[in-house]
């Protein structure tokens, strides 16, 4: 789960990381009231989870209430690369002497944590990494040991920040590490981390991605409600707990496991079709989950044929078959269905489906044959 900037800053504040005083606003009046409270000049910032919002006009400086009103009015409702701004963050503007970059994430190859710090912040950090890799100081952290103050200082010194920033950076980075582990984040990133003319180090932005697997020990995450306008199909799927990505084609897909779901997309393409979606019902799906998945696909008007590709390991064939039968009874499925069922209890599943088979529900023994049939059905519809 990716947090908005303001949510990231609220999280940072809980770990003692200095952030600017600010206010969340969903209307122009709220924005002006917030700006009046934090004191001018303020920065009005669009809250969207997409890069390049500054260039798109989503970040503006306001010196007084009139300017705050004007910018808030322009930014609310602004379309930034398909993301419509519904919420803004108004914060007291900071004087900036220098801009740095800092982050913690998992280094998958090393299977340890990786901290990255650069004196060249505020810009595209990928570019820094490619063009001047020496400007990116890295520290490897063993999760068992954690990050010691001494190692943190060595790392900060290697990044060659302004010496005036050293103590403040060490303090913030130790807190950022605590936030990374304590808040169960996959990624914490500050870009820019700034040094002010009066020598304070401060997080001017916050990018936080939380690990959804850790939700069971973070009841407070319920506050991080999403505001982004999802594709309506994706919203419906998400409410039903399904892993769904909307695509442009006309063959609706249901598979178990992300790998098989991706392979199903690949094979539909190869036999000349276009998938309408990626949908992974996950491991051990029940009949109800299968029925939900079919309903989501059925509600997509662009779908002309449905391809169900199940290779049961932890998912059981009879549950899949019962789900399909249940969905057929509950709703009017408007597209023909092709199913390929293999693996755990597949025989039982095929037996259950047998009496329901027709030209609207076809069973095929391999995924290639099933894909071909589904693509032909979509083209003939």
């Amino acid at each position, binding site marked *: 789960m990716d947090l908005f900037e303001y949510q990231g800053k609220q999280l940072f504040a809980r770990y003692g990381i200095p952030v600017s005083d600010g206010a969340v606003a969903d209307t122009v009046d709220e924005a002006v009231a917030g700006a009046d409270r934090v004191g001018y000049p303020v920065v009005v910032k669009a809250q969207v989870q997409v890069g390049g919002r500054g260039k798109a006009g989503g970040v503006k400086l306001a010196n007084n209430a009139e300017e705050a009103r004007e910018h808030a009015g322009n930014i609310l409702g602004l379309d930034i690369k398909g993301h419509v701004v519904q919420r803004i963050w108004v914060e007291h503007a900071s004087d900036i002497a220098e801009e740095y970059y800092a982050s913690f994430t998992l280094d998958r190859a090393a299977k340890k944590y990786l901290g990255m710090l650069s004196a060249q912040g505020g810009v595209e*950090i990928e570019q820094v990494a490619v063009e001047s890799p020496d400007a990116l100081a890295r520290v490897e952290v063993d999760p068992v040991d954690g990050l010691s103050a001494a190692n943190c200082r060595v790392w900060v010194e290697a990044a060659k920040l302004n010496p005036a920033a050293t103590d403040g950076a060490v303090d913030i980075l130790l807190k950022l590490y605590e936030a990374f582990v304590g808040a169960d984040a996959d990624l914490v*990133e500050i870009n820019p981390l700034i040094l002010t003319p009066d020598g304070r180090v401060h997080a001017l932005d916050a990018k936080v991605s939380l690990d959804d697997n850790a939700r069971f020990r973070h009841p407070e995450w319920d506050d991080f409600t999403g505001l982004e306008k999802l594709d309506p199909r994706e919203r419906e799927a998400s409410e039903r707990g399904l892993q769904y990505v909307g695509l442009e084609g006309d063959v609706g897909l249901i598979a178990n496991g992300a790998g098989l779901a*991706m392979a199903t997309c690949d094979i539909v393409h190869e036999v000349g079709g276009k998938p309408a979606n990626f949908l992974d019902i996950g491991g051990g799906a029940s009949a109800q989950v299968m029925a939900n998945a079919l309903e989501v696909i059925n509600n997509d008007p662009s779908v002309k044929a449905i391809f169900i590709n199940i290779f049961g390991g932890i998912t059981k064939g009879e549950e899949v078959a019962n789900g399909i039968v249940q969905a057929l009874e509950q709703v009017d499925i408007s597209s023909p269905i092709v199913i390929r069922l293999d693996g755990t209890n597949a025989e039982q599943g095929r037996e259950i489906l047998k009496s329901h088979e027709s030209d609207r529900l076809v069973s095929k023994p391999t*995924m290639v044959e099933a894909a071909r049939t589904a693509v032909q059905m979509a083209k003939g519809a």
Partner: protein
Amino acid sequence: MSILVNADTKVIVQGLTGGQGRFYGLRNRAYGTKVVGGVSPKKAGTDIEGIPVFASVKEAVAETGATASMVIVPAPAAADAVLEAAEAGVALIVAVTEGIPMHDEASFYNRVKRDFPASRILGPNCPGLLTPGECNIGFIPAEVAKAGGPVGIVSRSGTLTYQALNELAGLGIGVTTCVGIGGDPVPGTSFIDCLELFEADPQTKAVIMFGEIGGSAEEEAAAFIKARMSKPVVSYIAGVTAPPGKKMGHAGAIISGSKGTAQAKMAVLEDAGVRVATNPTAAGELMAEVVAGL
């Protein structure tokens, strides 16, 4: 021959008394796997259809001589279960549990590596592993597999592991061992670990490797294959046609040193001499050509 498990491997199940643990523990035993015990502090002294339940892994190992464990407990309890198995000296810890927090995985992986170097973790969030006709630990529907080799299978995705077995069996090709390493951020056993074991196994003559988009595990495997593998490798990377997937943030993109796309992975694998297919069925057919030429 095989890698990691064979007909003599004795297995305990941590979580045998739960619904999933019972179903798969019994299914693994029905296949012929020596499932010799279960662990459940609350139900110690009872049995599951004749499989004795012990209070701790230590006790189960002492009583049964088990060298492998399947961890099939809920995600919040998984980190403790893996560490308990390592402390008890279990050589192969197969963690099939899904949904474990990344920080738990990073922590127990590094703890086991440092303090219990004789233990290997497979997974978490993996389907387990199968030496057809001998031993099955986990979810793999073993009835689709043909025993005897000459092909070894390693896969990141659970269901694609089954698909690989199915494609090969359909072509009459046997498998030495099939390993599902799982797709989580901190896999205990990597592609490279399995490739190294297959390279050393005399009965394995060729290897099929199924990867997927994201991360850099396939790129690392390609470098290993180029430098160290003498046996032919066939591969398929799921997600050839996937749209740009999960947001990885800036830091993630830098680490992988690559965009993690299927195309990038396929290119480095081909450069390493791997025969790369564009779907699982085509991978099976490529492997049939390889096997015919052995």
